[in-house]
């Protein structure tokens, strides 16, 4: 390979960069096939996707950078993509570009080129461009930008071979000089001054391309300025910052606008020129309203939009949980049976009883607890991917924005909140569509307050036992309480931890497309498998831990008062006295409820010695409960500590143990306070 290149590590790296929704995922899959793995970028919530490409016997490392429109310091995603290109220096960057949206996509391309990245362009969605009579001349574009441009249709694998060939070829060639856009005499003068200073400062010069850095300083890029400030010990660094400040002031006065705007304007000017040259034929007189607009006129209609969206969501919900339930049940049964069978086999082999029990309830129970989540999660993500790929999801956010805004949330927060009624796990994973970190964190933190399906059996058990006449109202009041608390907490968290406005609502409404099976399945798999990988181990560990607590010391009856779990329950019971349920049975039920909320029912059945089916009899006959304390207990069940799967997914999505611990702590405290309040106020009002 190229002898001109300085020695490089064995495995060469290809990075993928591009706007959102341009087909980057499709291209990544076409390059790597099944050889991919997902992790997190260090310290942030953003997912990191990597894979391997094998081409002509050589292996290449492929990395999927987050989809971004720009490379400023605007969001975590942009900072990640920028730092990776700047500091990790991938050997080649494949810039995936949407041919139907050339101008906006080229903005990122110019930024990459200005940074000096070694770019190969995948001009994707060529089929759609053709359909819309957009004729782009890839050769001309390639000449103008000085980079290879390969037309592709990612969904049909067209052009992928050529893309790989060009990328590999490009790695062997010497790195190109960064793109130079002419920013006009005045700005160029200041760039030159700064560049001169930069060139004289080795620590900085080695780290950043000098012209790029000069531009960023003129634009007043916060991140870059901060980075340079950190190199203060070099007195030139200080000089550079002072010069940058001076240049910015000079340019603002001279040109009557801030330099950032001027630079961006010039960049767009350059792009407009490119488009004029490389697009051979503009579309004929386009009708004012495209088909997409006509659909939009209905689905984003002032009055119709909301009902349509709610019906769509309801359908997703119904379909998911209806289809998933039998599958989950079947999986649970199959695992129960496998557990029984292995325990039986172990017993027949003369293994100690405790071991058999461990295998049955701990091991198989634990794996089963993970598996029951698979059907709902995969189905839910299947339907959501379908709606997303068709382009409808963006309209949903549009319709909901106004309402969510009044709750201090973003339009895109609605979907996760709604999904929370099904299961908080996929709901929290669905917060990924929120670009702004604050909006996302708040949505994650309040999501457990949405009553998931697993809490319903507990509600029903108590409501039917103590409020046979008003079961519906009681259950509904709990759902409502959850929503109210979520809104309240959302506002509180924003005021306390995530100051600042809700991220302004601007989003692209992509044209409607027929979703392809391949792409929907890929998106479903990406999200679903992430859950199993990351949350699975935590769930398994906790199930085994609780099993141990309930069965030790050796010889005790499962979850009895003498077991460690029972003793733990006795320790916590007094805490719940003010809420009206200060007996160890309730405390034990709450502890196992952390495993899975529905476990509360089974545990109550076990601790009252009547079995799950007769739990209601046990509750009544124990004499521990009054309607009021039962209601307080339900409120506690609604709010306190999310289930382990939810905790695991909060940890995964926030990438922070601190916030995970916070979610556990605040729900526990809030649950306790609310339960106590309800019980005490209820008593004052004469209820019992």
């Amino acid at each position: 390979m190229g002898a001109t290149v300085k020695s490089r590590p064995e495995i060469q790296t290809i990075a993928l960069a591009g706007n959102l929704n341009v087909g980057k995922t499709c291209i990544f899959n076409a390059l790597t096939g099944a050889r991919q793995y997902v992790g997190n970028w260090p310290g942030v919530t953003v997912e990191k996707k990597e894979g391997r490409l094998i081409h002509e016997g050589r292996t290449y490392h492929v990395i999927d950078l987050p989809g971004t429109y720009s490379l400023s310091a605007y969001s975590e995603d942009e900072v990640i993509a920028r730092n990776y290109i700047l500091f990790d220096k991938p050997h080649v960057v494949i810039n995936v570009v949407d041919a139907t949206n050339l101008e906006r996509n080229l903005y990122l391309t110019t930024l990459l080129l200005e940074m000096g990245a070694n770019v190969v362009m995948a001009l994707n969605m060529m089929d759609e461009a053709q359909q819309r009579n957009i004729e782009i001349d890839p050769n001309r574009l390639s000449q103008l930008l000085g980079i290879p441009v390969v037309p592709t249709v990612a969904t049909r694998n067209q052009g992928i071979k050529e893309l790989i060939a060009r990328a590999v070829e490009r790695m062997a060639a010497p790195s190109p000089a960064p793109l130079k856009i002419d920013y006009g005499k005045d700005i160029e003068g200041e760039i030159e001054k700064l560049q001169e200073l930069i060139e004289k400062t080795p620590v900085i010069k080695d780290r950043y391309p000098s012209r790029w850095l000069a531009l960023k300083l003129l634009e007043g890029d916060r991140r870059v300025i901060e980075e340079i400030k950190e190199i203060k010990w070099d007195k030139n660094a200080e000089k550079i910052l002072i010069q940058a400040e001076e240049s910015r002031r000079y340019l603002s006065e001279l040109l009557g606008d801030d330099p950032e705007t001027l630079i961006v304007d010039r960049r767009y000017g350059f792009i407009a020129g490119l488009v004029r040259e490389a697009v051979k034929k503009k579309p004929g007189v386009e009708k004012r309203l495209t088909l997409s607009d006509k659909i939009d006129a209905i689905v984003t209609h002032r009055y119709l939009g909301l009902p349509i969206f709610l019906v769509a969501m309801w359908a997703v919900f119904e379909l998911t949980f209806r289809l998933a339930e039998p599958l989950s049940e079947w999986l649970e049964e199959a695992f129960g049976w496998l557990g029984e069978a292995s325990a039986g086999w172990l017993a027949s082999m003369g293994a100690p009883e405790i071991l058999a029990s461990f295998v049955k309830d701990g091991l198989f129970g634990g794996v089963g607890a993970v598996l029951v989540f698979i059907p709902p999660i995969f189905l839910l993500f299947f339907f959501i991917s379908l709606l997303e790929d068709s382009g409808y999801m963006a309209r949903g956010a549009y319709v909901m924005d106004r309402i969510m805004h009044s709750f201090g949330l973003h339009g895109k927060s609605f979907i996760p909140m709604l999904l929370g009624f099904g299961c908080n796990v996929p709901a929290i994973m669905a917060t990924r569509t929120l670009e702004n970190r604050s909006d996302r964190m708040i949505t994650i933190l309040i999501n457990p307050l949405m009553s998931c399906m697993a809490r319903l059996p507990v509600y029903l058990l108590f409501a039917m036992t103590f409020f046979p006449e008003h079961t519906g109202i009681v259950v509904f009041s709990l759902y409502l309480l959850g929503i109210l608390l979520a809104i309240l907490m959302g506002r509180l968290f924003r005021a306390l931890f995530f100051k600042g406005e809700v991220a302004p609502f601007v989003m692209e409404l992509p044209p409607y497309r027929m979703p392809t099976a391949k792409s929907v399945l890929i998106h479903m798999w990406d999200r679903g498998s992430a859950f199993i990988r990351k949350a699975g181990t935590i769930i398994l560990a906790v199930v085994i831990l609780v099993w141990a607590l309930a069965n030790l010391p050796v010889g005790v009856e499962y979850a009895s008062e003498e077991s460690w779990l029972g003793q733990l329950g006795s320790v916590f019971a007094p805490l719940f006295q003010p809420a009206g349920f200060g007996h160890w049975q309730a405390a034990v039920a709450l502890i196992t409820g952390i495993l899975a909320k529905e476990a509360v029912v089974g545990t109550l059945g076990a601790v009252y010695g009547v079995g799950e089916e007769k739990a209601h009899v046990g509750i009544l006959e124990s004499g521990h409960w009054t309607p009021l304390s039962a209601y307080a207990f339900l409120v506690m069940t609604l709010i306190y500590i999310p289930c382990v799967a939810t905790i695991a997914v909060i940890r995964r999505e926030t990438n922070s143990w601190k916030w995970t611990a916070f979610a556990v702590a605040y729900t526990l405290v809030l649950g306790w306070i609310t339960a106590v309040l309800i019980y005490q106020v209820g008593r004052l009002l004469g209820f019992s």
Partner: protein
Amino acid sequence: MAAVVPLEFARPGKDVIIKEVAGGMGIRRRLTDLGLVKGARAHVVRNDGFGPLILALGDGVSCCRLAIGRGMAHKIMVEEREPVDGSLCSSE
């Protein structure tokens, strides 16, 4: 010379030229990234006086649709123009 008004009040069916974007760097950045820069021309596809607006942003080639929240639309000053026939996406 047409009056400069906040985008919030631009009428559907008209074209607008962006004159000024008030507000912080964050907002400006976001708009810039999506191609809403000073001088850009856009067509107001929808404005119900309620909920976000929909703009067709011109790039001379394609028509991408942008939904813009009212709060943000309040901060964007535009000049209304009669639409140029057939050039929904003209980028003058």
